[in-house]
């Protein structure tokens, strides 16, 4: 194949320049992906060669032993694996968190985007200011609150603790996106007899799919791999979410490296598929601030 046609590009860029651009991008892609491929390679190593300085991605005599240990427990010590339970706990908690987060932020963002109510500007600044709250600052008050409500070691406790953590950021994203939708569309619908709220549900929400998907994703991800709050709220092993469980594998490098890597892959793959699937919306959905398209 002709090199020039292969690296087809627009006007302006000469073939040499295009080649350099492709090389730079390929290099960047390798840097981005290689550390992740390392986890795959460790998870495939046989048990006696976990600690190797091999740099190949698929190791020699690759085996799925680690995956079996993680999923079904250790047949030698008769120790069952809690991995699926942890995964289930995480799933229940984060899906619910994400649903609540999307509902809260979509409706609030619509108000910020379409109404000039008193306190709108300060409100947006306030939302940005909540992002300045140092991590861990609210943990103790939240914990004491959950203790008093008897929600420690329950799903609800963690759901409540997570539910609004991504909401301020989500409101910003959604508001930015709603701003790009022409107001004429709603006005036309309202002339046809739809209520204001009806226009929101029937016109704005369907048009905002990319941005709603991104916001769901952020809310989901913020809870999905959260470790530090979970460590404080959940103390029973049966209630652990996967980051807590995984840490018990990661504690020592030597013994559990294979299981740790295999568990990581099993957790990361669904999350990454979800993320990459929605990445086609990522660029269009993530309109931070007032870019009117």
């Amino acid at each position, binding site marked *: 194949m002709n090199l020039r046609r*292969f690296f087809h590009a627009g006007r302006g860029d000469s073939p040499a320049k295009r080649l350099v651009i492709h090389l730079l991008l390929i290099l960047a892609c390798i840097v981005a992906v290689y550390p992740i491929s390392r986890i795959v390679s460790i998870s495939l190593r046989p048990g006696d060669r976990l600690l190797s300085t091999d740099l190949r991605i698929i190791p020699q005599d690759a085996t799925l032993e680690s995956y079996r240990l993680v999923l079904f427990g250790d047949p030698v010590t008769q120790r069952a694996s809690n991995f699926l339970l942890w995964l289930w706990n995480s799933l229940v908690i984060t899906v619910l968190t994400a649903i609540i987060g999307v509902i809260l932020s979509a409706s609030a963002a619509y108000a910020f985007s379409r109404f000039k*109510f008193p306190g709108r500007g300060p409100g947006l600044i306030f939302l*940005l*200011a909540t992002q300045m709250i140092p991590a861990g600052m609210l943990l103790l008050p939240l914990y004491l609150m959950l203790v008093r409500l008897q929600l420690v070691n329950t799903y609800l406790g963690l759901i409540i603790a997570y539910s609004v953590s991504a*909401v301020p950021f989500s409101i910003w994203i959604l508001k930015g996106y709603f701003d790009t939708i022409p107001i004429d569309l709603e006005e036309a619908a309202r002339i046809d007899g739809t209520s204001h709220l009806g226009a929101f549900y029937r016109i704005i929400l369907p048009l905002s799919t990319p941005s709603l998907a991104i916001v769901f994703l952020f809310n989901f991800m913020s809870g999905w791999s959260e470790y530090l709050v979970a460590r404080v709220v959940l103390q029973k092993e049966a209630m652990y979410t996967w980051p807590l469980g995984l840490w018990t594998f990661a504690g020592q490098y030597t013994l559990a490296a294979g299981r740790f890597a295999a568990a990581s892959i099993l957790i990361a793959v669904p999350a990454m598929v979800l*993320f990459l699937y929605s990445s086609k919306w990522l*660029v269009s959905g993530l309109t931070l601030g007032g870019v009117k398209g």
Partner: protein
Amino acid sequence: MISLTPEVMLQSFLTVFRFLLLILAALAVLETVLYTLTHRRPKNAAVGLGMLALTIVLAYAFRSFVLPAEGLDTPVKAGIGVALLLADVGLYWLLSNPHVTRLGLAYLLLAPALIGISALMVYPFAYNVYLAFSNMGMMTIRTFTVSLENGIANFRSVFTGVVAHDATFWEVLLRTIVWTAVNIFFHVTGGMALALLLNRPLRFKGLYRTLLVFPWAIPQTIACMALRNEFNFQFGFFNTLLRNLGLTPINWLTDPTWAFIALCISNIWLGIPFMMVVILGGLQSISREYYEAAEMDGASGVQQFRSITLPLLQPVLTPAVILGTAWTFNALNVIYLITRGNPQEKTDILVSSLYKAAFDFYRYGFAAAFALVIFGFLLLFAVVYIRATGGLKAAWE
């Protein structure tokens, strides 16, 4: 040892399902009542009473189905009751005021998020301020006292004492500033470079973009734990590479400077995709016509970048940099999971010292004061930055 059985799954599903149902019911009631109030503007008290009755029913349902409330202290119960009552009365008063009615829908839409943020961010924040004036610690968790002297002592020891075990506030502050500056610089330049490369007509653009967001797509906890292992002296990837190149391996996790560099490498790797995506979104919304006009006038690529791209990216870049700064400043996960601030707290940043002060050394009152100081610094930065760039105006006009 409990493992995942169908019963466990069913049970957790039911718990959560009831909770979700009740939240939705509460929202529906709230919204319906608000809607009636704002759009029909009642002159009678019937709607107000109905609202009250529904609140009581919901609170009761919540209490019996969701919260196992037997052991709740009476003050807590009374507090929740009074709060609900006040909320009802306040809303009724607010919404029967004709002036508000015009914007009724806005308040109706804002209410759920406002309630959530108030309960889970504003209230804990206020409580944190209260704690900053207490001498609460492990031993005094129930018997702590609140006084101005305690507050002054807490704030004074933030600035003069040690914040966790060894490190002083100023040392950690300086390191945090370096940490944030280095990270944001590389996030923005790296993200900008990749976005500019991707914003050309190019083959495999989608593929490149997908591969480049990998560090963002992988759950951060996993990325951090995995990177921690890659910095291992004997078996980690970095040292293996150095050995293969014939160089001396580095004590990544035991040498303070290298440990800090290791953290920077990790966080830069994690943070570039976000900036790339945000900047790419901004670039795509800039009309081609500007560039065509500039080319017509003979402007060079650099000139175009400086006088078209950068100014038009400002509305996107400002919030992204503010958020990025706040996140980097708050990158507790990265620090905690990779080095834990070791060796000798030489790689701690403010938030990881804060976490240690509160949850390793149980100095709750001190930690609360410390947290307020950190919050103040971040807020100050954001205000100065927004003033300097003026880039947020577009967002609320």
